[in-house]
């Protein structure tokens, strides 16, 4: 049990944490870029 807790703290939580941050961050970046491009096109189409 204590070994499992050590494994969680040292390896499992960092591995999952990095994955969540990387994939979550990438999704936000991709979504943000799409929203920005769409807003820019909409503004230009109004001119």
């Amino acid at each position: 049990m204590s070994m499992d807790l050590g494994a969680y703290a040292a390896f499992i939580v960092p591995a999952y944490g990095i994955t969540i941050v990387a994939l979550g961050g990438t999704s936000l970046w991709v979504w943000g870029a799409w929203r920005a491009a769409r807003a820019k096109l909409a503004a230009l189409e109004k001119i």
Partner: protein
Amino acid sequence: MFDWLFRYANPARFMGLSGTLLPWLVALTVLTIGTGLYLGFSAPPDYQQGRTVLILFIHVPAATVMEMAYGAIVIASLFSLVNRHILADVAARTAAPLGAIFTVLALVTGSLWGRPTWGTFWQWDWRMTSTLVQLFLYVGYMALWSAIEDETKAARICAVLALVGAVNIPIIKFSVQWSASLHQGESIMSGGLDKAFLAPLLIMILGYTLLFVTLWLVRIRTAITERRARSLMQGVGA
């Protein structure tokens, strides 16, 4: 032979089709990854690795998508060189950063899994070194795209680089069979993985694949929209 593909390679048709598919893809991605994680965390501890086996469910899918993304770049590059299709260039270019992120994740999670199972974070064996080379290939590919101003020229040169770099894919795949390594050999197709781990792993691989496809489609849509905005700006400026 590829007539059906070229019908959807028209940017307007692509935007329509991808716009319809995306909400379904997002829902399927969330459902698949959620199910995979639930089943993974419900699986019993491995008799040798204990709970560190949980890293399997994020490491292997990341490594699979790393290769899949490069495969997508290679196929798009072939279409770019043979058919000179603008959407093929956009597809290849937009897949690269995603592939690079999945490669970083494969390397980092693999390293964090290696320490408790092998006793080391890193070993310069064929599998790990070729995966690192894959990351350099992605970074080099993106740098080359950014370095050449003429987009048509950049697309041609980058397509050639992508095709040359494809030699690394079989090296990554078969390296564990070619040489002795700390990295374990193929265990999905060989039946070496218990069902309790295999089912969540396959679901997670599907989930990661869906996530990649979803992000890739949004990136292609963004690139098409930016191109439209650029051509409108040129029209306004003229």
